[in-house]
């Protein structure tokens, strides 16, 4: 990995357990700042688990346990002093399934903003507009901001979730298969969006779609059976992987 890049997220000997079952084995990697990093691998290989470990979403699952360090900006997020709420405000997340709140489009975006601080209506209006513009949704919904978000199409809902995540201005954006339920046109729009957002945010993307990883990411990590097999520049992974497993997976010999 290039030395000039600032490391944003780093894992050191990171192990993860669902009860007795170990899901991640000694993960070591550094995710660079303001780049798109993609994780690929077959289902159940642990890439989503790793992603959800970064903002501690796995805490919500009963009986999970970790071992090792997950460093974000030089701080171990699993430290006792780390407040998980503050952590998650700095790390936005977009899920596989779009999950708009059963509220209006406007309220969906302002939800995260009004949690801890009060803002004026004008400020909120401004942020709503800018985040909707950035997620390429403004023109489609500007006339129905007060309509329920559940009346939007699937692709719009997913972009709304992205807009909602970037409205609170996080530093890192975690995306857990954001396009797996979308049609190609919506997928293209989301990919464009990722392209655009990577100047501002460190984006970590989990995807089943290798073409997508190839298209949008700068770095790619390949997970298999809970281990990180290879992590390198996307071009290197896709053209000259150093591990046999990676090559087999990429060329479609398994998985």
């Amino acid at each position, binding site marked *: 990995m290039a030395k000039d890049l600032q490391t944003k997220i780093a894992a050191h000997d990171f192990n993860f357990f669902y009860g007795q079952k170990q899901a991640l084995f000694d993960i070591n990697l550094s995710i660079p700042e303001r780049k798109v990093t993609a994780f690929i691998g077959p289902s159940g290989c642990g890439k989503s688990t790793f992603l959800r470990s970064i903002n501690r979403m796995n805490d919500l699952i009963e009986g999970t346990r970790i071992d090792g360090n997950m460093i974000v900006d030089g701080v171990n997020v699993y430290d006792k002093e780390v407040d998980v709420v503050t952590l998650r405000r700095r790390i936005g997340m977009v899920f596989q399934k779009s999950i708009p*709140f*059963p509220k209006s489009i406007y309220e969906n975006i302002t939800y995260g903003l009004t949690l801890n601080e009060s803002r004026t209506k004008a400020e909120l209006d401004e942020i709503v507009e800018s985040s909707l513009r950035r997620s390429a949704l403004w023109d489609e919904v500007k006339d129905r901001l007060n309509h329920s978000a559940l*009346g939007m199409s699937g692709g719009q809902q997913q972009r709304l979730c992205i807009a909602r995540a970037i409205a609170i201005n996080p530093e890192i954006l975690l995306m857990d298969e954001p396009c797996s339920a979308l049609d190609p046109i919506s997928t293209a729009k989301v990919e464009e969006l990722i392209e655009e957002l990577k100047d501002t945010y460190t984006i970590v993307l989990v995807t089943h779609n290798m073409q997508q990883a190839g298209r949008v990411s700068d770095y790619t990590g390949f997970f298999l059976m809970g281990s990180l097999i290879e992590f390198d520049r996307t071009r290197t992974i896709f053209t000259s992987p150093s591990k046999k497993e990676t090559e087999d997976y990429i060329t479609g010999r398994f998985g």
Partner: protein
Amino acid sequence: MNNPFRTTRRNIGELIAEWSIRAVASLSIIVIFLIFVFVFREASTLFLGDSDEATPQSTQVAQTDSTSQTTSSSEPDVYNPEAEEPEVYNPEAEAPSSGEEGAPGEFIYIAANPAYPHIYNPSTGLIPPDIDAASTEEDVVLGDTLSFTENFFSSTWQPVGEVPKFGIVPLLIGTAKTTLIAILIGAPLGILAALFVAFFAKPWIREIVKPGIELLAGFPSVVIGFFCLVSVASWVQDITGVPYRLNAIVGGIGLSLAVIPIVFSIAEDALSAVPKTLREASLALGSTEWQTAYRVMLPAAAPGVFAAVLLGIGRAFGETMIAIMATGNAPLSTFSPFEPARTVAATIGSEMGEVVWGSEHYGVLFLLGVLLFVFSFGLNAITELYVKTRFIKRFQGK
């Protein structure tokens, strides 16, 4: 010949099972319907005039008072032995007067007649006994000039008396009072407990608390009533120092004990049914558990929680035993929560056992039953419609 679409042969046991299920289901629906019909029919005698299907003795309670002396004078002949008897208890009353009013039967006669001369005489200024008869006669006429509806919406419930008064206003006030108190206590507690169990409690705590509260739903209401009668009444009196030991507050607390498990279990179901992904999405935006519960999960489950509260209200005004035991059971037309109250259900529960079969009182009690029916039916209908439309609105984004 080889028809591939011929009906497959059915297993005989399967057929029997299917038909018995159908039979039981239709039977239960018919029985429920018949209960409706029965209650409405009994109450309808009030409006459809005094039909003769009711027992002659009891319908006369209303009739003899109202109209001709011929019926009233002819009636006592039949009941003479009983009508004579009261003279032992009430020497002041004149025999003819007893003959004129005695028609209702001994119970009413004894209960009403001694009261009049003794209470009314001093206040009106010593009415001689022989005028007394006339004055009570006048009262009877006066009482009956009140039409049934006027009587029904008056503020006195004295179903047994010379002039039976069937004012349901105090009963409605009592029901409203106790139900309101029960819901004001029960709904917040039930909903907060549901929130706690659904989102905050550790699994092992949930395993204890949830069945614990739901067990309360199966608690015999007479035990809750007894508990209120003995313990809660004392606590409330110690704290507030009110003169009446049993009052609407005690009754409301008792009813809230019946309401809480209903509100809790339905609200908890509604909250648990909200997709877990919503919770994750909210937490991922950096909200606390409480903010998530309050601002995302509760609104998402609002129709269900609303239904829980409505069903809680239904339970509160329909509950009989707790209302009889803990409210003081006095039909007072006062809105003060510290005075005794009597609910509609408690009235039916405590008076139906002693009412003269087929009398006006009997009809009024059934009318109260109809009132309860209609009210709870309406409440359930609102719940159903509201919940359905709101859920559709919410989750289809209309």
